[in-house]
């Protein structure tokens, strides 16, 4: 039953799974089995698996999607208070005081995430069949994709923090393997390493949070922690919240751990769509929303989330404005949009549902745009530089139409899904704090600018193509997922109709809280649309009307140079982390050579020296040996006498 303490946090109080919910483990098992079969089988019998491996790898996530849909419909059939179920799969850890089961929790939040991961994931799997058709290691790619899906599902379905952490690390591994998929490219291998190392910093935060939770409540289970949430001091809750925030920053590429996301675009485009747009990078938002019972009791931690989110949404937007690489521009956009989601999550019960709403709509339109970018790259011989595009709307009509749906959604054109979700977050932000709200509005304007710039450079204007490039539309296996996602970008706003999504998520995040923005809600909407329109017009005037040079001009303003350099994110990391790290390691090397080795070789030298001295007693004269014998005998006799007389 869903129960609520007096005005306190919502409690996770699930019933045991029965009926269709008892198949919850199968949702994870299908892609996990797929990963095992494809990776092992693909290594043992590569020729055989090359024929059907990609089909198997696509059918299994589709199976998970069908099962998720069935469970979702079954959940809708239940009463509002009876929508949390848990399935105990097996006893995982049972050591001393730590008991963690492999427990799968299915509640409204999990239901939405399952549909997103398996649904969008399956579409991207279908797309990858076409996109990776010429790659000799395609089977391995599908194996890794299935591994990712299985790990992500473990992350969102787990009922305790340890299982969540298992999935968390799993998606980090899958991300590393997939970013560095073209491992012969040095830049890809370096990007994969960078992503993994920066994620590790965040993971330390999450590990520390799990340890803190264990010492405070003796358990890492959401059920236990949410039930005993008032038992902990506010300091503990604040520390816990800030550590969870650190973990979320690493996975969701928020400032200060954002530097890996743009390099992660080295991976194949379906990877960028699935992992670095729709699902893995949203795991941080999931963590914060799932831990709402912590953040609701720690207002300082919540302030931290809001600050990080606001900084990131502007940071990502600025980066997106000056990137000529289409994927990097979309990556900057992802960073910014996740900032919006974190902002929603940081605003508390008033904003949780809207953060998840924006997460879902973003999953649709960003995956749509990334797959569209992949389609464009496929047509332009894998060139990512937008300065070499231009006037592609006639050459790639389906891609252009579907991409435009995603574009209109992300800038918040009235009626599209992004309009509804972003608008709600801006409203709640303004109600909380006028400065945060203004930053959110400004971010919306900058989003309008850079997305319009991207559209103009790619689809409009003059043809700036290289000599032997003949763009042609992508095959159906790639365009059909684009069409489905475009439809979802348009219709995704229906989730807000009649306040459906807030009511649906209320067992998890608490009932919707009334918020009063300083100006009426309709005025906020109008203001947002106006600011976006200004951003779009600025882009049309400064980018659309002017000639676009094929090489990026070097004499640009300071802001452009900063945006090109990722707002100096890499430079800051270099100064603050890499240089001191290198100094520390060279210092340790010197210490190791001189002190540690010195002790050991010094010891050896001393022994040798003493030996050289003592050696001189071996002079070969029998009489001196006899004398030392006599000396020894005398000593023994003296000792005996001393003992006997004492």
């Amino acid at each position, binding site marked *: 039953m869903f129960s609520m303490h007096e005005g306190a946090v919502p409690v996770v109080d699930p019933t045991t799974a029965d009926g269709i919910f008892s198949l919850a483990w199968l949702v994870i098992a299908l892609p996990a089995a797929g990963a095992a079969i494809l990776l092992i089988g693909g290594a043992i019998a590569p020729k055989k698996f090359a024929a059907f491996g990609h089909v198997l790898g696509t059918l299994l996530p589709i199976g998970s999607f069908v099962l998720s849909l069935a469970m979702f419909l079954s959940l809708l059939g239940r009463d509002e208070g009876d929508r949390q179920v848990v399935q105990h799969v097996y006893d995982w850890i049972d050591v001393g005081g730590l008991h963690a089961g492999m427990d799968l929790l299915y509640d409204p939040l999990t239901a939405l995430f399952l549909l997103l991961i398996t649904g969008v994931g399956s579409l991207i799997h279908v797309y990858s069949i076409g996109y990776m058709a010429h790659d000799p290691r395609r089977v391995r790619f599908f194996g890794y994709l299935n591994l990712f899906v299985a790990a992500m599902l473990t992350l969102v379905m787990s009922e305790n923090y340890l299982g969540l952490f298992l999935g968390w690390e799993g998606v980090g591994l899958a991300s590393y393997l997939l970013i560095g998929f073209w491992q012969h490219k040095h830049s890809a291998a370096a990007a994969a390493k960078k992503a993994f190392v920066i994620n590790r910093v965040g993971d330390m935060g999450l590990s520390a949070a799990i340890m803190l939770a264990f010492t405070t409540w003796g358990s890492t289970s959401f059920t236990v922690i949410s039930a005993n949430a008032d038992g902990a001091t506010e300091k503990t809750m604040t520390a816990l919240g800030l550590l969870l925030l650190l973990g979320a920053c690493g996975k969701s590429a928020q400032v200060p751990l954002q530097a890996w996301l743009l390099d992660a675009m080295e991976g194949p485009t379906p990877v960028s769509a699935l992992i670095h747009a729709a699902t893995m990078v949203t795991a941080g938002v999931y963590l914060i929303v799932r831990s709402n019972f912590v953040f609701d009791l720690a207002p300082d931690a919540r302030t931290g989330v809001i600050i990080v989110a606001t900084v990131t949404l502007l940071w990502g937007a600025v980066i997106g404005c000056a990137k000529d690489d289409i994927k990097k521009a979309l990556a900057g956009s992802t960073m910014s949009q996740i900032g919006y989601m974190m902002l929603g999550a940081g605003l508390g019960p008033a904003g949780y549902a809207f953060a998840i709403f924006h997460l879902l709509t973003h999953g649709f339109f960003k995956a749509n745009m990334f797959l569209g970018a992949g389609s464009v790259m496929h047509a332009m011989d894998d060139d990512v530089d937008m300065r070499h595009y231009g006037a592609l709307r006639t050459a790639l009509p389906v891609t252009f139409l579907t991409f435009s749906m995603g574009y209109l959604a992300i800038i918040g054109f009235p009626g599209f899904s992004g309009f509804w979700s972003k608008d709600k977050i801006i409203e709640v932000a303004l109600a909380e704090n006028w400065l945060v709200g203004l930053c959110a509005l400004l971010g919306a304007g900058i989003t309008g600018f850079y997305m319009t710039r991207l559209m103009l450079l790619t689809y409009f204007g003059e043809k700036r193509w290289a000599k032997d490039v003949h763009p042609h539309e992508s095959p159906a296996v790639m365009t059909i997922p684009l069409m489905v996602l475009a439809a979802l970008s348009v219709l995704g706003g229906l989730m807000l109709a009649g306040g459906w999504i807030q009511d649906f998520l209320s067992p998890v995040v608490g009932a919707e809280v009334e918020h009063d923005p300083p100006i009426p809600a309709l005025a906020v909407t109008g203001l947002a649309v106006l600011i976006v329109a200004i951003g779009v017009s600025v882009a049309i005037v400064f980018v659309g009307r002017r000639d676009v040079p094929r090489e990026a001009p070097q004499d640009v303003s300071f802001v452009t140079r900063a945006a090109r350099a990722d707002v100096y994110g890499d430079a800051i990391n270099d100064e603050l982390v890499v240089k001191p790290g290198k100094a520390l390691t060279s210092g340790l090397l010197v210490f190791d050579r001189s002190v540690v080795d010195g002790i050991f070789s010094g010891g050896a030298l001393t022994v040798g020296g003493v030996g050289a001295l003592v*050696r001189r007693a*071996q*002079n070969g004269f029998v009489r001196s040996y006899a004398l030392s014998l*006599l000396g020894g005998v005398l000593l023994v006799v003296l000792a005996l006498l001393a003992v006997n007389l004492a």
Partner: protein
Amino acid sequence: MDSVTPFIVLSSILFTIGAVGVLTRRNAIVVFMCVELMLNASNLALVAFAKQHGDLDGQIAAFFVMVVAAAEVVVGLAIIMTIFRTRRSASVDDASLLKY
């Protein structure tokens, strides 16, 4: 007899003379003779104490010592003879090759 002291004193004097001889004489045969002297000095002490205790343990031990001394003389003289044949010298100081 009343006291065993004179015999012990004599035994220790003989032992000391033998020890000094081993340490100071250069001729290997003389060193050997001094070793024999030390062994016989300890024989004397053993027999004297046996008489004092009134049983034969000391005398049996003296027998053992004599047998061992005989065997040792055989081996030792054989070694000295071999060294003398190869080096033409019986001085203990000349056989000093086993040094650092």
